[in-house]
């Protein structure tokens, strides 16, 4: 298993690469597309500069496209409230076309949602919980002005834009592990991405143990789903008081010590897991959900930017890195 995680754009070699950042020499990866004179990317995949050369011929995002040309897939459709979990928390299902649905069937993927009649800046990112057929399942907390707006006045119209992929830091660890032992720490709204993570991990014969706390949501709404997926679920009433102690016990026991830890929940929980590992004197690869505020999703606006310990600025909507490398705010 890779111990060190390279800092790498999640969209490399996808249909969305090279992206708008390359137009202004702000690519996070290709040295030429950063404005340097020679190659210095250390990438053995398809050359991004080459890809740009070929895509220019299609006039992908060239001068003729106007501001209404979507940069990803877009679908104007209806959603329905499948379940209300708490006062402001809903499970929504959104029917989209199969192309968009299939492209989102991967853990860490997310979409932007807004009312079709609203201004662009109303759109907000939501992690995908699961895909069934052409249905996207998401969990929305209607607490901010954007998410509240989506459900206001019995609205059921939605504009979906996607796919976006950088919902989990340490994604390559999840993608590359098989027959492994995994400890998944889940808190509150982090239950939604946890479903996507578990669904992907079980396909590769991994043994997964979940420690879950209800958090502000007030219940473990994924319990049945996890039972169906045949994972070992340990429910705790409070992550801070009970969950972390339980985690500490797991790490101390060499029989139970996992190959990979995944933290799905708030940043405080991620840092809590790191602290427990420190105290136990072990260092395991840790994947963690990406909770940063995002506005554009394309690496342009900078709202999701974080600083790493070696003083690099990372636009987290696109760039993969090890969560433990971020400076704690």
């Amino acid at each position: 298993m890779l111990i060190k995680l390279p800092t790498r754009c999640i969209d490399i070699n996808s249909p969305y690469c090279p992206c708008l950042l390359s137009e202004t020499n702000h690519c996070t990866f290709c040295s030429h597309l950063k404005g340097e004179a020679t190659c210095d990317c250390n990438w053995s995949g398809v050359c991004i500069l080459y890809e740009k050369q070929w895509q220019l011929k299609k006039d992908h995002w060239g001068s003729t496209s106007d501001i209404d040309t979507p940069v990803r897939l877009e679908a104007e459709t209806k959603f329905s409230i499948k379940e209300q979990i708490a006062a402001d928390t809903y499970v929504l299902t959104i029917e989209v076309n199969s192309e968009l649905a299939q492209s989102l069937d991967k853990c860490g993927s997310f979409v932007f949602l807004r009312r079709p009649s609203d201004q662009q800046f109303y759109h907000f990112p939501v992690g995908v919980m699961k895909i069934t057929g052409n249905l996207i399942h998401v969990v929305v907390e209607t607490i901010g002005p954007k998410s509240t707006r989506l459900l206001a006045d019995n609205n059921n119209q939605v504009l979906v834009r996607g796919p976006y992929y950088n919902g989990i830091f340490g994604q390559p660890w999840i993608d590359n592990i098989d027959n492994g032992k995994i400890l998944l720490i889940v808190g509150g709204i982090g239950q939604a991405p946890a479903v996507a993570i578990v669904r992907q991990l079980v396909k590769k014969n991994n043994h997964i143990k979940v420690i879950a706390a209800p958090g502000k949501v007030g219940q473990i709404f994924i319990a049945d789903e996890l039972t169906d997926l045949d994972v070992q679920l340990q429910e705790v009433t409070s992550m801070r008081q009970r969950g972390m102690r339980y985690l500490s016990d797991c790490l101390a026991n060499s029989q139970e010590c996992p190959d990979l830890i995944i933290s799905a929940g708030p940043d405080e929980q991620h840092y809590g897991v790191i602290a427990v590992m420190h105290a136990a004197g072990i260092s395991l690869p840790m994947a963690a959900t990406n909770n940063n505020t995002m506005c554009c999703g394309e690496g342009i606006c900078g709202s999701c930017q974080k600083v790493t310990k070696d003083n690099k600025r990372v636009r987290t909507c696109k760039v993969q890195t090890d969560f433990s490398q971020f400076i704690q705010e």
Partner: protein
Amino acid sequence: MIKVVVVGGGWAGCAAALSAAKAGAQVVLLERTDLLLGTGLVGGIFRNNGRFTAAEEAIAMGGGDLFVAMDANTRHRGVNFPGHSHASFYDVTTMEPLVKKILQNYGIEIKTRARVSGLVKYGKKIQHLTFDNEEIITGDAFVDTTGTTGPMGNCLKYGNGCAMCILRCPTFGPRVSLTSKADVKEIMGKKADGSYGAMSGSCKINKDSLSSELKNQLEKEGMVVIPLPENLKKSGMLGKKACSQYAIADYAENIVLIDTGHAKLMTPFFPIDMLRTIPGLERARYEDPYSGGVGNSIRYLGIAPCDSALKVDSIDNLFCAGEKSGILVGHTEAVVTGLLSGHNAVRYCLDMKYLELPTELASGDFIQFIHKQMATEEGIKLRYTFSGSIYFEHMKTLGLYSAQRGEIIERISKTGLTDIYNTCLV
């Protein structure tokens, strides 16, 4: 034991590994691809013009193993072709295993498919190198013979794109320069028009795709000159060539083919449909680069600033050779600089004074001449080789050119460097 790590298994790296081993070091030679010799896998021409002098100097200094191997694996010797006298052509198809065997006999550990992707230095010393799989390798001294060409982005930006050449970047990953990873600012060569880089100067045609008459003539005489039809005499192509010794009018008006195992075509690229209008070449197809009808590799995009001992500026234990050490062309030049850098890497470990080749020798004068030229705006646009162009002229003016073995041995003896590379320093 002293450990020298050589990065890059082209001719320069092979020579550096050889001289370091001869001087008594434990040597590891790292190569990114699965074959040694680098662009020497498609080279072949040696001993032409002043390269004869340089080769004999190296032999007299005790570093002749690789030249002896080339001589032993020669298809044609004593060939004269436009602008060049007494050339030998080694067989590019069988050279590599022979060199590998020689290096292994000296106890050199050769690691292929070992792509170095970074390094760790403390102060002005490299501590260890990291491979792309996160493994590390330590050493006392390092030699950067990573060349100056590829990855694909460079060939795209400064040339006609990846032409699928012998460097095989898409398969084995991009070349990584040690010098640049050590935060040393590299020098970039220029074309005559001032743009960066220069295109490699020859392509290989599959010999079986030539007409049988042409193939027979080529194998018998070693080379063939075919006048270009009037409509194909192109202009503007010469300035792009890396090999300035072939950038003379003869090569713009004629197709020159040389038998190096493949039919070596002395032009950077040539559109295949035009090539096939020439009698004897109706079925021609390229062997290297595969897209020789479109382009060729771009080189000289990362030369290490270094001194006459070939030590890289501002890093204490890093040496360089081949194209990395100056805008030079050819494997004779690579071997000559390689021998010196490997030898000096050992001297570094023993805290000895570095060996600098005196200017009474062609190889010593060559290194100093290039470094002086590279400091000038005009000089950075030229390429240097013992076999032609500006340096061969310079060499003749100074009386350094000689095709007499006895005379060259005598010269080496006068400088006191006889068998210097055969001396175990440890």
